[in-house]
């Protein structure tokens, strides 16, 4: 069954303990495009993206209901192993989190090693390819044995992107990847996101509306756990249907 959608989310609800953080979300995320999720703090956008690779449930007391179809298959089905799902998706977090006790090389190769790949040649080529994809290769190619922690913040974040890309995921999930970075590093990551969209499905959570406007093809606006509006980025920013969206985008609150 062919579907242009990578994710089809059907009546997704999520809780932390008794706190209802996502309320009946229905959304379809298109393949090989960038979908941005925006909204004020606490609106559930991070929870939303963490429901897509079953990271939400690792927090004690967290609960999910509803369906998330990934390539037409429900990832919340009982038979599905969340570990296998996560291997198909790369995730980048708010704060760069490279493994400080590993070298740059080993950071980039970490995912492959988890998959049991030990072949040196294969590892070499994948490390080089993913560091190039993450536009980091030229900066680190002579220091591959240095600690991942020796890099600057922006470089660390690109290393994390390379680490996620190395396992050839189908999807890149990015949770405010630039929130801890300076403008120059942010610009580099944004360029990278646009490039990635040619081959990958990218979902990016961002606090920064300009960033959503710059990098995304589709935008979802979440408010207090509800999906207020979802559509092409152009539409959302130029001609929002909901008054709430308009207020948020024009900076009246948030």
């Amino acid at each position: 069954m062919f579907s242009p959608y990578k994710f089809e989310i059907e009546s997704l609800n999520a809780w932390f303990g008794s706190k209802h953080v996502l309320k009946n979300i229905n959304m379809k995320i298109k393949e090989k495009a960038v979908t941005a999720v925006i909204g004020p703090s606490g609106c559930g956008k991070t929870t939303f993206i963490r429901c897509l690779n079953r990271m939400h449930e690792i927090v004690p007391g967290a609960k999910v209901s509803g369906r998330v179809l990934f390539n037409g298959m429900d990832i919340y089905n009982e038979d599905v192993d969340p570990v296998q799902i996560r291997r198909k998706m790369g995730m980048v977090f708010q704060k760069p989190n490279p493994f400080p006790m590993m070298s740059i090389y080993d950071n980039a190769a970490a995912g492959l090693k988890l998959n049991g790949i030990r072949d040196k040649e294969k590892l070499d080529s994948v490390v080089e390819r993913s560091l190039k994809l993450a536009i980091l290769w030229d900066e680190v190619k002579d220091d591959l044995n240095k600690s991942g922690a020796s890099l600057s913040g922006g470089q660390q974040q690109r290393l994390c992107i390379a680490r996620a890309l190395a396992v050839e995921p189908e999807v890149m999930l990015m949770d405010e990847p630039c929130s801890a970075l300076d403008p120059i590093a942010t610009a580099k990551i944004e360029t990278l996101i646009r490039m990635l969209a040619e081959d990958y499905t990218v979902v990016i959570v961002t606090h920064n509306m300009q960033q959503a406007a710059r990098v995304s093809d589709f935008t979802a606006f979440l408010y207090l756990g509800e999906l207020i509006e979802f559509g092409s980025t152009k539409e959302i920013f130029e001609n929002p249907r909901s008054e709430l969206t308009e207020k948020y985008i024009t900076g009246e609150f948030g």
Partner: protein
Amino acid sequence: MKSSRKPPVFIHNLNVKVHKIFKKPLTGDYAFKLLAATFASIIFLILGLMIYELIKGSQLSLQRFGIEFLIGTKWDPAISQVFGVLPLILGTLVTSAIALLIGVPISLCIGLALSEYAPKRFGFAISFLVELLAAVPSVIYGLWGIFTLIPFLRNNVYAYLQGILGFIPLFSGPIYGGGVLTGGIILAIMIIPTVSAVSRDVFSAVPNTQREAMISLGATKWETAKNVISYARSGVIGAIILGLGRAVGETMAITMVIGNKFQLLPSSLFDAWYTMSAIIANEFTEATYGLYVSALIEVGLVLFFVALIINVLARLVVWRSLKLVRGIARE
């Protein structure tokens, strides 16, 4: 006018503050600083006094035997009055090594279980009990060793062990119950509370972002836990050293179960042996002449330096691996 620019106001203010600190030393702040510094420097005094007293007390033996004391293998207070501690050093190091070999893996598992796996309330209860174990006096461990552990090991464990591994010399020979392995086991039990409590703390201190990075890469729970250990390795080394420190210096319990037999090397793990702390505890009351007492004090001096060397080495390792993590820890 040389320059039209005034110095920025905040720098000016700062100067005033710095100035004040030096001009008005007798504020409460300064008095407290002095008090704290005094007590802190008492540490140096105590340590210095300890070394001084140990060296002074062991003068007789130091002058008589010199380096022979360290490499000598004879301990004969009764007839020839010759003292050498090499067997005791070996006994201390080997029993401590056995303790680490057995105790550290168990402790790390306890630490991981508490920080990564256990539900909060359950983990809290276990932590409390583990820490309670550290408060049990060592003579109690020794008594328990004599009355419970030794019969249990002799009747249920050692015979099997010998049956399976008897072809290795280490596991051959007569089984008394007490001995090197029993000593190592009791030390292992005694270091578990310390090592597991500290390793739980260092594992808990690993930022969650590290766990999430592993999980998002598709790591299993165990692979994530391995990464936690690796991130916390300097702390883990610190925990192990604390355990080693306790094992090396432990006196009562080991004295009660190791058999206290002075020999260069035991014939097997089941044979009796001796440690530095045990011989001091056992023979101090019997030391009837100056050289004997002096030799025992020198054993204390050697023990002190062995512990010192272990701690310095450990510090170096911890510093080295901390350097790696610092880049991330800065956040």
